[in-house]
């Protein structure tokens, strides 16, 4: 059995409003979602949403992160939401001539299959390097604290505005220790 295995890759051949990876294999210990994506939003950047288990009751997603935007460091929090919201985490279309640039994202969710604990996560994101006033790099940590502590069986990724552009790519990896 592989230690790190690619469970599913979605490579968009046409624009899509969102990407959903469901029926996630529960036999691993940690999930890693890696993405190279871009939004069709008519802005330099827009927020990026990652949602567990599809429209769950309650606002069970919270995220804290450090952010660097050009020469300005800072910190943000996006708490008690229906998704993990990364402020301006995915790039848009404003910067003409840089249509080949896609944002990068890595999300790690340990112990995602447990049924007796909240799910913690860590994230790294960077977008819009070609557009100085909107360039953002961030890292953070969050939690999915649904009261019943369900295993994570589905992840959905959505830009706040615009659709995910053709060429956006998402791969979910399962990791186990042996």
């Amino acid at each position, binding site marked *: 059995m592989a230690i790190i295995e690619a469970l599913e890759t979605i490579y968009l051949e046409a624009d899509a409003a969102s990407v959903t990876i469901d029926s996630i294999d529960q036999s691993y210990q940690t999930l890693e979602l890696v993405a190279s994506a871009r939004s069709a939003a008519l802005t330099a950047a827009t927020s990026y949403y990652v949602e567990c288990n599809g429209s769950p009751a309650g606002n069970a997603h919270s995220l804290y992160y450090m952010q660097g935007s050009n*020469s300005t460091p800072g910190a943000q929090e996006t708490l008690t939401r229906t998704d993990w919201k990364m402020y301006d985490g995915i790039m848009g279309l404003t910067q003409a001539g840089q249509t080949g640039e*896609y*944002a*990068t994202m890595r999300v790690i969710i340990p112990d995602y299959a447990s049924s007796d604990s909240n799910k913690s996560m860590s994230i790294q994101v960077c977008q819009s*390097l070609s557009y100085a006033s909107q360039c953002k*790099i961030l890292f953070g940590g969050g939690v999915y604290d649904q009261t019943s502590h369900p295993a994570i069986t589905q992840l959905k990724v959505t830009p706040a505005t615009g659709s995910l552009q053709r060429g956006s790519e998402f791969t979910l990896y399962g990791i186990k220790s042996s």
Partner: protein
Amino acid sequence: MTTQTVNTATPDYIVDSTLTDGEAWVPLITTVVSGTSTANVQMQSSTGANDWSQYMNLFLISTTRSLGTNSILRLNFNNDTGSNYQCQILGGNGTNDTAYYQTIGYADINSMPISSSAANYFASCITQIFDINSGKDTSLLGTTGKELNGVSAGIVNINSTVWYNQAPVTEIDLSIGGGVDAFAASSRFDLFGILPRMVTV
């Protein structure tokens, strides 16, 4: 001088031309520095498992130290040293946080100990290079850290670079300040290829 190991074996995740389940990460190249004269570490796509055209992403793990006064680990793709790299970095040194943004001729992926630093201290660095065979500008995302035996100038950062070029990545060159200084012995670079599992939408 370096010792470089390149994995050109027939990929064991392919059996009778069929892709089978297996590890998503495949070891490609390991380079370990010895001596005092290595100013550039070159990694190139070749054959077998080391044919980079079969991978979605690359992942580089490195531990480095400079023999000179320059501390910046530079990464260049495909021998391009023009000002085609846009970097954004967020870092901290134990007291202050900083961010900066620059257009330069390389990806700035690490800050390492130098000749005057405490002996036997190396910086760590992990760098993921995304979607290297697509029609996108190549982007990377990484983290790095160095500690200098309690002396100030330790640093940690998260960094990202976009290379304004959509060609497949077939070569990576690593240097300190563009070859100004040499890597210390025991500096090490491990490159992995990461496989996808394709589902078309």
